[in-house]
């Protein structure tokens, strides 16, 4: 929270106010933002003590302190299978999203034509269409072609959902590309492949990486589509957690949630680092 607090404070400071007023303002702002931050984070953090319970049931307040729920999770082949399925689904969805999203972003870059707004709207629509609607449509389609219950089907459906994330980040990184750079490369003798390799690729690389992290996270986390398309051999981790919480209330759920929280934190930090580097790269001085 600390760094983002700092950014908010400096951004909202009007220039030229006295330092004393600044301080009062900063304190007031901090007073407001800290509770909001706590409010946003606390519900997620609650799973951590719950994972450390001694009991065989998930409960609050937990009986401290044991790591048996973690051991149970790693010892249960069903849960491990689900984890692997989730990874496979997310990785394939991410790869498809990277290819399609980056290609779309590049294809639309610098082009002006009537109806471009509509095209972009269609590409971004999976973000705004209600997930249940998308899930139902996916289910009806894959049922028709007898593909329900296969992790690849879930992955394909997810790739549609996460492509906009890559598209948006690639588009953003292309706005930082100096058109003179492409012309320079051509004037120096670069054919299309070399132009791509030396100008477009370095410009969009950070965008693709950032988009890929997003895409992976969203697919890994997605439960509605995965629930519709699940099968005995295609149960993703969130789906298993969801079903499990209805039947056996095992603290393994809290353990997994805790692990995922850790992974998400790492991913967030990595993405922030990439964004910083990307920003530095796209602004040559």
């Amino acid at each position, binding site marked *: 929270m600390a760094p983002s607090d700092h950014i908010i404070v400096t951004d909202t400071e009007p220039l030229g106010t006295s330092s004393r007023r600044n301080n009062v303002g900063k304190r007031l702002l901090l007073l407001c933002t800290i509770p909001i931050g706590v409010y946003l984070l606390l519900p997620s953090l609650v799973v951590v003590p719950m994972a450390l319970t001694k009991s065989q049931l998930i409960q609050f307040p937990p009986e401290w302190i044991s790591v048996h729920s973690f051991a149970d999770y790693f010892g249960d082949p069903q849960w491990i299978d689900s984890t692997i399925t989730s990874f496979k689904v997310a990785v394939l969805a991410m790869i498809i999203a990277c290819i399609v999203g980056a290609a779309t972003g590049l294809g639309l870059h610098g082009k002006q034509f009537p109806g471009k707004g509509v095209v972009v709207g269609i590409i971004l629509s999976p973000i705004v269409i209600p997930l249940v609607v998308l899930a139902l449509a996916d289910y009806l389609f894959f049922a028709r072609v007898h593909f329900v219950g296969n992790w690849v089907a879930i992955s394909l459906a997810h790739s549609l959902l996460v492509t906009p994330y890559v598209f948006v980040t690639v588009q953003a990184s292309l706005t930082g590309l*100096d058109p003179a750079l492409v*012309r320079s490369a051509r004037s120096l003798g*670069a054919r299309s492949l*070399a132009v791509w390799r030396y100008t477009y690729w370095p410009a969009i690389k950070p965008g693709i990486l950032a988009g890929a992290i997003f895409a992976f996270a969203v697919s890994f986390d997605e439960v509605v589509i995965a629930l519709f398309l699940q099968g005995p051999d295609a149960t993703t981790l969130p789906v298993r957690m969801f079903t499990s919480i209805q039947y056996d209330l095992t603290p393994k759920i809290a353990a997994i949630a805790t692990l995922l929280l850790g992974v998400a934190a790492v991913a967030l930090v990595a993405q922030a680092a990439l964004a910083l580097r990307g920003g530095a790269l796209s602004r*040559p001085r």
Partner: protein
Amino acid sequence: MITPVAGRAGAPQATPIATQHTAGRRLEVIGVWKSYVDKTYVVENVSFTLEPGQFLTLLGPSGSGKTTTLMMVAGFELPTRGEIRVGGRDVARLLPERRNFGVVFQGYALFPQMTVLENVEFGLWMRRLPRRECRRRGMEMLEKVGLVEFASRKPRELSGGQQQRVALARALVFEPDALLLDEPLGALDRRLREALQLEIKEIQRRIGISILYVTHDQDEAMMMSDRIAVMRSGRIVQLDSPTEIYQHPRTPFVANFLGETNLLPVIECQSEGGVAQVRFADGSLGFAAQPRGGSKKPAGSKMMLSLRPERIQILRRPDQTDSVVTGTVRERTFLGRQIRYVVETLGQKLIVSTTDPRLLAEIALDHRVQLGWAHGDAQLLAESDD
């Protein structure tokens, strides 16, 4: 199909690369027109020749077609009509990557992810030269622009001046037919511009490359060019040496765009031996130089005389010059190394600038003064602006 570097090394050439101090091949732009979908021409019938080793500037305000012309030479725009010849061969329809020009853009557009040396080597990589050859010639080029110790730096770690040298080195390393510079200094402040202008000239002198330069800055054009093509609304209005353009402008636009001038309408004119005797609206007479290369002016249209403020003398005795007019001082500004007067005469206001500080004490506001000029100091304009 064109491999200019290989061609340079082996095959005989149409136009030989001349002496040690001139590199590049003759570039001819012949009757080039450019229009976009709306059918109005942004470039109309532009022709010029850039000889090897020469520095030619396309000078004009924004929208005059100068950058479009340069982009057609570079290959990023396709001419609607006309030819662009390099060493006698028409390249107007070739893709930019198949021409052999070094192009320098505003902001320099260096590859941010590559080192200085890699940037410079790039053109050689694209020509598929062996790695070691690329390295050797890249380093050689960096030596020429004095950046050897920066070879492994990234462009963003360099100053603006150093980046310009990298851009020039990158554009020069593959021995292009000419260097094309598109307002490279456009975004910089005055002091830095002047330093970098000198640097471009210096590198050009050392390498002997021909340069086609685009700018809207008349001082820059005057300082750097061998010849200047003044452009307006897609046409070249005058193509001459800087001194010729300054001293003998052909149109009011040229006279005003390069430096400051007074334009005096003339109602009658008789010429004899290169000197024109003119009559002003109030009936007084004066002398001026005849337009060089003849006047294209239709008979009976309005004629103009261009008179530079620094060529007008404030006379102590009336017989010093051949043309004399009398006027009243309306404004006086002391600018340190020059004094500017605004004098009302011939029914208009004339700007007169002088470097003689003694006049400051002698001539004050509302004084009657006599102004004079020698016939060679005034120029009768050949054409009017349309």
